[in-house]
């Protein structure tokens, strides 16, 4: 490799998605774009698949300088981001572009204290998490008592809907569905392709009325950020702003691929009737109320956050059909 010249800044970028995942590719493209726009004054070494920091240590790893930049999931470190957690509630996100845009607007408005230690480049979030099962589910009665793979927040949703949450790593879900250790999973539809789970489920219930999302950050070490020249900072901020929609669209494309893939395997989609949709919404409402109560108690504007989120989802839901 050629010796790095004095004014070249080398940055490492830890991404928890495997390199083949569409979101890792979007992140990689962002890195290449920065290199291009800075005429090579910034070099970014992208390490995907959690090869530098595992998903749940990615944020902390950026704070401590293990990697300079990191992309991972807020929800993997429960309690660390109390206000950003609001984004993941089952608010009925229609698609990934809406969820991603809402997440960024939400961050801009509240600028939560929990993210003060880093430079937030941008945020993205997946399309609605849906229910995928081995036996079709069209009503709460059919779901009752079913063992559903879920962790953290999705486990709360599973419980609220009357099913049984079973936690396990995403990597073990395939086999567990195959053997029947679990009878379903809660995840965005792209998971059916990305993690091959379409091979071992039969049906997807369009529960987007209670569609939750998982917000993900792209953040940079603050000290490192401050050492960058002003024009490089500007280039990075501009590119980041443009990449919000790149990721949002990537999520929707991945969901579309997941949908096609699961249909190609002969799996079915089940839609919920109007009345049933209302019942599901009602069932998960206590999760949202609990959140407001819990986080308000910490002195954070949870009530306002939820109100704004609901407004943003309607607003951007219209824009991104």
């Amino acid at each position, binding site marked *: 490799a050629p010796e790095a010249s004095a004014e070249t800044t080398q940055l490492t970028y830890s991404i928890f998605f495997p390199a083949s995942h569409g979101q890792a590719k979007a992140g990689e493209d962002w890195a290449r774009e920065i290199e291009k726009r800075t005429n090579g004054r910034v070099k970014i070494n992208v390490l995907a698949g959690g090869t530098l920091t595992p998903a749940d240590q990615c944020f902390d790893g950026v704070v401590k300088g293990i990697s300079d930049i990191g992309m991972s999931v807020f929800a993997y*470190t429960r*309690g660390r981001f109390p206000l950003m957690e609001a984004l993941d509630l089952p608010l009925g996100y229609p698609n990934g572009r809406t969820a991603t845009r809402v997440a960024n607007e939400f961050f801009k408005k509240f600028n939560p204290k929990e993210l003060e230690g880093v430079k937030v480049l941008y945020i993205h979030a997946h399309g609605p998490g849906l229910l995928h099962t081995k036996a079709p589910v069209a009503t709460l009665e059919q779901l009752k008592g079913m*063992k559903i793979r879920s962790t953290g927040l999705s486990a709360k949703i599973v419980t609220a809907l009357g099913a049984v949450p079973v936690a396990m790593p995403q990597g073990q879900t395939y086999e567990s569905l195959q053997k029947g250790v679990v009878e379903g999973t809660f995840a965005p539809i792209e998971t059916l392709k990305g993690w091959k789970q379409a091979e071992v489920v039969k049906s997807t219930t369009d529960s987007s009325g209670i569609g939750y999302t998982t917000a993900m950050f792209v953040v940079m070490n603050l000290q490192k950020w401050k050492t960058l020249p002003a024009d490089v900072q500007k280039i990075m901020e501009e590119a980041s702003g443009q990449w919000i929609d790149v990721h949002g669209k990537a999520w929707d494309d991945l969901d579309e691929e997941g949908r096609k893939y699961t249909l190609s395997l002969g799996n079915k989609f089940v839609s919920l009737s109007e009345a049933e949709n209302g019942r599901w919404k009602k069932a998960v409402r206590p999760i949202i109320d609990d959140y407001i109560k819990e986080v308000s108690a910490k002195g954070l504007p949870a009530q306002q956050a939820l109100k704004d989120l609901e407004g943003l989802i309607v607003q951007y839901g219209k824009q991104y059909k």
Partner: protein
Amino acid sequence: MVQFHRGIVLVSQGFNVVSGAAVITMMILTCADVVLRLLRNPIPGTYEIVGFLGTVIISFSLASTSLEKGHIAVEILVERLPKRLQIAIETVVSLIGAVLFGLIAWQCAAYAADMRHSGEVSLTLAMPIHPFIYGIALGSGLLSMVLLTECLRSAIRTVKS
């Protein structure tokens, strides 16, 4: 010195009992969860508790494993050297190990304090995570002490021989 060493050995053995108890707990918890899940009523948080028990098993057996020379090393070269040189090498090697695990203990304690401050909790049970990291700090600290006493003992032997 001898009494100090004996004390360290006793503490290490005590720690190892905790480690063994964690193995049994992990086994019973897993089986109970499997059986209760068949009845559609699994134990919430089994997944994360099992992981945390893993840290207890390993960190609390670090010292006793070292006392039993359980950490595998490549013997092929050193065993051919003269006895005296072997003991000298042993002294340096123990010191290096003691420094390494001293660092790990220190950093884990700092990490645990950080974790506590950040308010991060486990995903399902919302259980604090930092006690388990303190556990690694404790186990590594004890291992560091074990290696330090071994370093001193072989240093004394080097001088005597």
